[in-house]
Every structure is written in structure tokens, then in C-alpha cells.
């Protein structure tokens, strides 16, 4: 009986230890972003009206890595289709990094290891082009994950 207990512990104790719970939390201060472009203004970019503040927290990760990414679920739809890649963002504080949306492909916004608590800000911008006047919509996901 004792022998069986020793074998059981060797086989199952380690996996139970590795599967320790972890928690990932993300919250955003703004869930609606508006960018107004006036094409008569000779500026290379139109900036979002407000910055987006993002807070993330990871617990129980130990030394495991985490990453925060932005995913454009679609292209901008409106009077015509505008590629999501016309939207980019500027990181207003580290460890967030600048980037550009790509439809269907998560783009890295930040990464790190272990337990973290941080607040960052990003500013979305639209690369000015000759697109039809009107309203265009796009849904974006912010994803905090750990492999």
C-alpha cells in the first residue's frame, strides 16, 4: 500500500503543482474611440479624440510570461471598406509599444513575466487617405494572455 502511495505521488504530484491557478485581469477606461478626420487639413494623421487607458494585473503566474495584444476583428466598414491597417496606435508610456492594426492578426502591445500590475495609455490614429466621407466602424479586442 505504501509502495503504491509513493508511485502515485511521483506520477501525479508534480502535474498538480504545475497547474497552479493564475488570474489575468484587464480593464479599459474607454470602450468607445472616435477619430474625426477632416481631409481638408494637410496632416498625415487624424488622432483619436481621447486616449485609451488600460489597466492589467496578473497573479499567480510565477515566472511565466504574459502578453497583451490588440486584435482587429474586421476592416472598417462604412460607405466603403477601409483596411484595418490604416489604424495604428502610439504608446504613451512604457512598457506599451507602438503598433498597427492588422485584421485577424493579434498585434503585440506589451509583454512581461510574472505578477504584474500596470496602467498604460495608448492613442489611436488614422492614416489620412482619400476615402469616402461618412461613418466607419470597427471592433477591436484587447487580449491579455499567458501561454
Amino acid at each position, binding site marked *: 500500500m505504501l509502495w503504491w502511495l509513493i508511485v502515485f505521488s511521483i506520477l501525479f504530484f508534480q502535474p498538480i503543482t504545475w497547474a497552479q491557478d493564475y488570474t489575468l485581469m484587464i480593464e479599459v477606461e474607454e470602450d468607445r*474611440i472616435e477619430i474625426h478626420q477632416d*481631409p481638408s487639413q494637410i496632416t498625415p494623421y487624424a488622432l483619436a479624440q481621447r486616449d485609451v487607458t488600460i489597466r492589467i494585473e496578473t497573479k499567480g503566474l510565477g515566472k511565466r510570461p504574459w502578453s497583451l495584444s490588440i486584435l482587429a476583428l474586421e476592416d472598417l466598414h462604412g460607405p466603403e471598406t477601409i483596411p484595418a491597417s490604416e489604424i495604428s496606435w502610439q504608446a504613451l508610456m512604457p512598457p506599451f509599444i507602438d503598433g498597427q492594426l492588422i485584421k485577424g492578426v493579434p498585434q503585440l502591445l506589451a509583454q512581461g513575466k510574472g505578477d504584474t500590475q500596470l496602467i498604460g495609455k495608448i492613442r489611436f490614429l488614422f492614416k489620412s487617405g482619400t476615402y*469616402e*466621407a461618412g461613418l466607419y466602424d470597427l471592433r477591436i*479586442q484587447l*487580449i491579455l*494572455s499567458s501561454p
Partner: protein
Amino acid sequence: MVKKGFLVIIAMVLGLSVDGWARRDIGLNRSAQVELDLRLKIAVFLFLQIGSPGRVVNMVRFNVTDIPENQPLVEGDFSPTIKIKSNVGKFASISLTVDSSNPLMGKSAKMPLKVISFEGIGDFSGIKGTLDGSPNQKIASFPGKSKKQGSFRFFYHNTYNYPPDIYRGSITFTLSFP
């Protein structure tokens, strides 16, 4: 005392429910994700440039030195660049009109601008006509979403109707949509 306690409780409830964060997700042993809605508003614009950029009025000169038989048509010495750009919409249309209602003025005579004709080059090739002396002559229309660049050649139709002189005047182009 009762009123004071009631106020304190309300303040605490409000303080708990409005924490300034619009969306939140907590993942236990999974990823956490929130969605944002992005709206882009693009304003309507029309861009028209005739000649040099900026607040410059270019001049086209016609040097008339001979009798009409030898010089029936005199081309202007300058063909101004024309650029148009608009984002009104591909199903709308925009119009290019010209105001030639003010005649050319000499010292002793006026010359109506009907003596001047024009012809487009580049993206404007195929557009040609004669100024009609009206304030709102439509000379071309384009799709509402357009970006075109070219130039205009101008010609003076030589006649004997006006005394030798230097005649000056101006025409105004307008790009518009209904």
C-alpha cells in the same frame, strides 16, 4: 443623525459602482479580453487648385500681332495645372464650373470672354469648349470620389472687332457638389 447616515450610505454605493473603468474581464487560468468600438468620421471635402499652389492668381497672356488670316487662333503662353480631389461618394457627382461674366477691359473697349476657348490635357483631356460669358458655365463633371490632375490650354479667337490695346480680366473656377 438619521439623515446624515443615509447620505453616507448613498455616497458609498455610488463610489463603489462608478470606478471609472468602462469594461473589465478577469480570466482564471485563461486569457482575459475586452472589446472596444472604434468609430471613424470622415468629413466631406472638395479640393481645387488652378495654377500655382497657395493664394496666387496666375496669368495667361495672348500676344496678338498679326491679322486674323495669319493668326486666327492665338494660344496662351501658360497652361495652368489643375488638380481636383473629393471624397463626396462614388455615387454622387461633382461639377466644375467657370465664371466668365466679367469682360476683358481695355482703355477704350470691353471684350467679352466669349473670344476665349479652352482644352483640357492629362486627366482633363476631352474637355473643351468656349467660354460663354455667363457666371455659372458647367464645363465638366466627375464622380464624387475623384482625384485628377491635368492642365488647361487657352486660346484667343482673333477678330478685327476690338481696337489695339492690352485687355485684362479674370475667370473663376468652382468645384461643387449638389
